[in-house]
């Protein structure tokens, strides 16, 4: 099809420039034009969420977007979660809680959870924290046919609690360090 567009997109910090057909979905562009095959397609009509990626930090169904709509955007995919081949805390929690079986829906759940975890950390500390009902509702955004969801919910909740505890610890350290640094000046 001759109706093509030039697209610039940053995926997991890597800048790409390519020409895509106007009707190419973001999912197909990521998978077939750029080789990020970790993003999977389970329904291509926006229900199952297997294709969930982060677009400028927000979770989106990449099957419901055209590649051209990502022009100038930062895209996060499952391939960007681990550093140096080391599973992230969330990925490790998925394994520890047996949150995956066939693994096909897993990348979508990981990206969905990443957005949620970022939102948890950005919340006002005085407000409500993560809870099982809240995480269950989040996880209900996507479909998994193997696990019955319990492992996914446990993994996301455990990671949220661990990240919040780590952030609290750092905040505590920073406060404690504050006066000490001031004193030393």
């Amino acid at each position, binding site marked *: 099809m001759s109706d093509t567009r030039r697209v610039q997109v940053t995926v997991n910090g890597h800048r790409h420039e390519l020409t895509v057909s106007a009707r190419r979905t973001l999912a197909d562009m990521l*998978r077939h034009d750029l080789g990020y*095959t970790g993003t999977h397609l389970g329904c291509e009509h926006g229900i199952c969420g297997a294709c969930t990626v982060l677009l400028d930090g927000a979770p989106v169904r990449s099957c419901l977007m055209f590649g051209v709509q990502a022009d100038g955007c930062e895209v996060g995919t*499952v391939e960007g979660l681990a550093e140096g081949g080391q599973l992230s805390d969330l990925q490790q929690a998925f394994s520890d809680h047996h949150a995956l079986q*066939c693994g096909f829906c897993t990348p979508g759940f990981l990206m969905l959870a990443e957005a949620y975890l970022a939102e948890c950390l950005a919340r006002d500390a005085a407000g409500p*924290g993560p809870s099982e009902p809240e995480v269950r509702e989040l996880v209900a955004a996507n479909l998994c046919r193997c*696990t019955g*969801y319990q492992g996914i919910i446990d993994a996301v909740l455990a990671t949220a609690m661990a990240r919040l505890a780590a952030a609290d610890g750092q905040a505590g350290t920073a406060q404690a360090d504050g006066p000490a640094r001031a004193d030393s000046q």
Partner: protein
Amino acid sequence: MSTPAVSPPTPAGHVPGRGWVGAAVRRKEDRRMLLGRARFTGDFVRAGMLHAAFARSPLAAARVAAVDVSAALAMPGVAGAFTGADLGSPYLLAVLERPEFTATRMPVLAGDEVRFVGEPVAIVVTDDPYVAEDAAEAVAVEWQPVPVIADMHSATRDGARQVHAGLVNNCMVDLTMFADDRLDGVFASAPVVVCGEFASARVAALPMEGRACLAEWDERDGQLVLHMSTQVPHQARSAVAQALGIAEQAVRVIAPDVGGGFGLKCVVGREEIAVAAAALRLQRPVQWVEDRQENLTASFHGHEQRYDVRAAFGADGMILGLAADISCDVGAYSAFPFTCAVEPLMACTELPGVYKVPAYAARGRAIATNKPPTAPYRGVSRPQIVLVMERLMEKAAAELGMDPLEIRRRNLIGNEEFPYLGVNGITYDEGSYRESLDLAEKRVARSGWPGERDQLRASGTRAGIGYSCFSERTAYGTTTMSLRRMRMTPGYDVALVRMDPSGEVIVTTGTFSHGQGHETTFAQIVADRLGVHPEQVRLRQGDTDLAAYGWGTWGSRSIVVGGGAAFRAAEAVADHLRQVAAHLLEASAADVELAEGAARVRGDPAAALAISEISRIVHFQAHLLPEPLRYGLEARRSYDPPGTFSNACHAAMVTIEPGTFQVRLHRYLVVEDCGVVINPLVVEGQVRGGVTQGAAAALYERVLYDADGQPRSATLMDYLAPTASEICGIDIEHLETPSAHSETGAKGMGEGGTIGAPAAVLNAINDALADVRVSFDHIPVLPAEICEALASEGPA
């Protein structure tokens, strides 16, 4: 912020000296999947690869007067467009060697007739998957509609059109498997006779990855190489070879990572064969990835069944006789290799289940309709037969004024009665049928379910508790399977265990994990035999050229049959290692122990050799060993058990939302016994996933067709698969009755969750409606039905 309770993960470590079997070892599969580096069929790319799409029938029943692919061929980038005739009219033929069975061909591409909406009539192949769909739409077909057989009622009506020429009453198979002259007398004299009609809707297996394949001709090997999302690589190879008339050795099927199957992929579809044929014609790689609409309308369904049942009970609640007439809507074709008889055969044979039925008769039919064919979807008739028996128990208890759990307890096969020979000719091996019910009842009481139900009721919310007791026959071996008389009779499996010179282990099996975690569990089994770490054991599977021959993964067979074969092969290699160690350490082989990476002589702590050192010597310094101990460390073993029954008791508590009449799962408990648990993480994952599918079949899922045979559930907005919001936490208790019919003591358990859940949920719904006359004997039970029933019936 409040801190929610986070369930801690099951501790992973194994206890030294106790081996790896039983430990919650983290899955070896997880890493690549979590990194996005798993490889599913749609992820593979080849130079010059083409993409396939199918022109499909928009009608449920029609003569095909003409197919014109010229407009499609004229489109840019289209490399080929073929009808069935263009490809030599290939077909698949699944055969049951029974006189009651009528064999029917499933053409790879429909010839002069189409039999369901979505049936493929032509394949188009292009260099762009988007253009492929355009080109498929450009295929022009002249249809001549014929009357549609949309359901079993119209299929069996007098004068009904036959879906295939040669059928009578559209019956593909009519089995009278059990008959008993005494039954008439039993029913005539029984204190209580309970009659019922039970039904379950057509459902979709719905693996998150649909079907997919990539076919290419490898000139160097002279082979058609087919990457394919399948549960049965070797049987897929047979299907391709038979349909295309080529030798099996000229076909190599490779199943890479497979995104779920649930039985949908243990049969072979026509699309994969058409893609293979197109690749052969064009001598170019061709890929096809099914989309969700195709998956919901043009692959395989299951579980559309009706039961007319009579059961006689004594005044003491003992069941005296059981007679069933079972009809399965199997759609338009018989799936390869199992045939369309798989549902009626299973239903007739196993209906009595966990109960002692003294007299039994059953007739089972597979009825052809203008709908997609059926595959052995998870559970295969057992969700239905358990539903039937558990409803019968409830009905009989109500008639007799007995406690519904007590009537079950009286009829359940007791511990002292194993091995129990059933009226159905099946020998049940040891289980914990009564124990699991007792434990479930105790747990339900201890957790306060009844009190909570009463509180909910007092506050105006309908709530109910339901139970189901069942066993799951698993790991059917060849002899057991041969009773079905399939031309292709599965059952056994083969494993090869090989130690490399560095002491690492490669295992190949004919089973094929697609979510069940065999790379981990098989490694645990083999590691214990060889005294190595599971990380040192690698499973190769899913490649017909590399892996041992076998029957794939379905029927809850793999850990018992494949795992048993791997156990035996590993034990043979362990024997070899012990003998080499004994020779080198000048000890008796009987005194050598393999553990923690070393061979040690019992009672002599100084006498030890690393297993890697033994393997190095066998491979690199064979001259140090006597002739019988030289030349490699490998063994091939088979395993062909008769089959073994796992069992469970499920308890469900549901609420019915006032106003919307939506049934919600409130609590769920599974007491399960699958013998030796190889890995509790995996077992509990199978239970939870299975319960979710089974509960959804009771509450939400149905594949719907209208009277014209048009699909009304072609998207996931219409076919309601459960999300996390529809499921509650599922508590699991384990009992462990090892099987003597299993090398490892383990029993299969891949389907139990799906088998037990519909009955437990349905009984819970009926308990929630206990104060009114209405009750339900079908699934799914939809909110509108409850609303209507309550409105029309009023309080009793």
